[in-house]
């Protein structure tokens, strides 16, 4: 036992030593800052968005939402055991998908618009065909040993999932089997996002790390640290060169992929609530971050300043999303309502 412990201690020491060297290497290339780069950029001023619509229909906490590629339909999941697909323009509910397990934590729309997926405490990701006369279960992806925290379609044939069992997984929807399992996190994976070119994806986890993975090789390419608590939300900057994370430590951070480090942080001493979700506007200039303080705060991505707030929910904002055409932002909350703003 003692020999084993000694071995582990030695390995841990070597590991820590390497991590220190990595930090030094990062520091060595850190010869510029975002504030310097964005110094000449005009401030966006105060961003005041109005609540254009409130979508009512869920009967319990909303945990997740996802826009369809047509920027008009959206799917939302609530712990009342239903997925609702909305036409956000008219406010009508188009389809209601009853769930086998009400403890849903994530939902996704396929780019084709034919399929939606959801999952949660049942440890499974269930894929539904919503173009059928009534929603039909297409696949039940069952191999995770922990809750499903996030899922995203690559196409009608492939889907990525993030799980509380600390792994992310790429599934083949035709066979219903796992194709690649991405293992490296040591805490529950809470969120994932696909790169614009679909060659890589990023994940945020309870080990306070964000990781970049190569979809084809199945390996972790980069690891970003800096947060001091669970990372709940993660997204790519639209040009694919940086990632933005939101954490329970009440801050968001932007990490640049090529210089392999944090380039700017988004925090405010008056903001004392964890970040639950985030989304970027089309130009990447604005970050919409949902917090536990019932608000969604708006940040100027380049200048790191808080430029606005979306208030109106009666409970924490659990999910945020900007559609592909960037018309506005949708927030979903534990108060069971979805609000559209622009």
């Amino acid at each position: 036992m003692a020999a084993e412990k000694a071995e582990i201690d030695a390995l841990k020491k070597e590991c820590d030593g390497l991590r220190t060297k990595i930090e030094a290497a990062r520091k060595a290339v850190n010869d510029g800052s975002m504030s310097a780069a964005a110094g000449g950029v005009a401030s966006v001023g105060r961003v005041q968005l109005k609540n254009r619509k409130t979508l009512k229909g869920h009967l319990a906490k909303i945990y997740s939402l996802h826009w369809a590629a047509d920027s008009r339909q959206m799917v939302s999941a609530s712990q009342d055991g239903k997925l609702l697909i909305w036409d956000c323009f008219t406010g009508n509910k188009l389809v209601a998908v009853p769930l086998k397990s009400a403890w849903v934590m994530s939902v996704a729309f396929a780019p084709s618009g034919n399929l939606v997926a959801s999952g949660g405490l049942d440890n499974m990701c269930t894929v539904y065909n919503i173009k059928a006369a009534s929603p039909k279960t297409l696949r039940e992806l069952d191999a995770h040993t922990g809750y499903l925290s996030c899922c995203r379609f690559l196409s009608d044939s492939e889907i990525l999932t993030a799980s509380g069992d600390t792994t992310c997984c790429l599934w083949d929807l035709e066979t219903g089997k796992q194709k690649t399992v991405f293992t490296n996190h040591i805490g529950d994976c809470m969120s994932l996002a696909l790169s614009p070119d679909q060659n890589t994806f990023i994940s945020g986890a309870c080990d306070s790390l964000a990781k970049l993975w190569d979809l084809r090789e199945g390996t972790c390419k980069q690891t970003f640290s800096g947060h001091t608590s669970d990372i709940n939300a993660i997204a790519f900057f639209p040009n694919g060169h940086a990632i933005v994370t939101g954490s329970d430590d009440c801050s968001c951070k932007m990490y640049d992929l090529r210089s392999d480090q944090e380039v700017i942080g988004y925090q405010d001493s008056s903001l004392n609530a964890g970040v639950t979700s985030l989304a970027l506007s089309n130009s990447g200039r604005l970050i919409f971050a949902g917090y536990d303080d019932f608000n969604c705060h708006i940040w100027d991505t380049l200048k790191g300043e808080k430029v606005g707030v979306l208030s109106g929910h009666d409970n924490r904002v659990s999910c945020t999303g900007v559609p592909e055409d960037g018309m506005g932002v949708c927030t979903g909350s534990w108060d069971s309502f979805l609000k559209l703003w622009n």
Partner: protein
Amino acid sequence: MTINTLAKGGWNREQMSCFRKMEKVIVSMQDPDMGMKMRNQRLLITVIPHAMTGRDIIDWLIQKYNICDEEALHVGGMLVRYGYIYPLKEPRSLVLRPDESPYRFQTPYFWTSTRWPASELDYAIYLAKKNIRKQGELMEYEKERYSVLNKRINHTWDFVVMQAREQLRASKQRRKADRIVLECQEQAYWLINRPPSGMRNMLDMGLERPNTFSSRVTLNSDYYKNEIENCKRALGRNRVKSSICLEGYVFVKYSEQYLNHDPIMQGCLPSNPWISDDTAHWTMNAEVVPTPTRLRVERWSFSFMELLNDSMGKREFMTYLEKEFSAENLCFWQACEDIRHGESSRIIQKVEEIYKNFLAPGAARWVNIDSKTMDKTLTGIRHPHRFVMDDAQMHIYFLMKKDSYPRYLKSDLYKNLLAKAIVPQESKKSVFPFMRRQRHASPSPAQVVTQATEEDGHAKGAGEAGTNSAAGSHA
């Protein structure tokens, strides 16, 4: 969405900030000079002092914060839902009614933030007291919980009963009015902290996460050996200087370039459908249109990916390539994309087709790939898989990007399209607000429970007092 209250201090931080804001409002409501005017309320034959009506609360909020009626109802409603003000009539309906219904301030002793989390022991004592007072006539859900608690903390049950009796005895010594007040306060506190099923639990913190992650992944020697390998690889990776990454074309330039394509920042023409209820913008930018908009055509010049991501752009580019007799490149790229994102079952067949059409010697649409990549690809084809064409596809992609794409942007084909492209006129917002179509949420297709109608201030109120059992979100 962490809940571990004490371990990371997480919860105390999150919910507290909202409570502190509410408490500030409550304190100013009780200010002797500028606060609310209280009066005595009659409840049956007893007079309850220091009460106010729902209407009073709303009026005070309107006046103090200079807000409208609807917002005051909303804020006041939150104060009630979180237990800072409780109703005297119908105590189980935690709703602010804008009428003569009587309300009272909750005493700071029973503020949620003061006594969080509500302890099981206290709840047991409360139920025990109620049980004794009402001689067993507890509500169904209270009876259930009482027996559950009895089993769970049976070892301290004597203490529970003793405390209950003590508190009852002490309260009998009080004046009737005071006793009733205390009972109301205590009841309100427990309605918030132990809501009956069907009533939304405002304090629900959601999923519990494990405290430490060592319970998920064993940090043994294998783990560290693996980590060391990862770190060594990471150490060796190429890092670009921040100054290069951040300046120039990257973030600032990107945001500036896409500013006109960001409706939240710059608005959009002819109008934003969410605001104007006019779908013209979507119609003009549909996948297939006779004439595209100018912004759309301009966007194709931002990057090669932008051109390829737009089906119309891709078609235009294909037309151009056909003129240049290099259309096979785009066809090849498209076919490779099809393999990458398509069904697994058809991979083998698709790879064969690509070989036949594009790679085989003398193929009808032979693509020009360097010999090294060609050899590698041909070897790979013997065992086809989703990514077998990646290298070849990448080669052709860069070929088009470096060569054909820039020339396309300079071509007459592109320039003419740009010149002909539509610049929509900004449509005027409707002058008469009442002409805007009212949109009502349609009932759920799999309709089970009746819903309150939206678009009136009562919606939130009625929805809250939850009559549905599907909510079931309490501890």
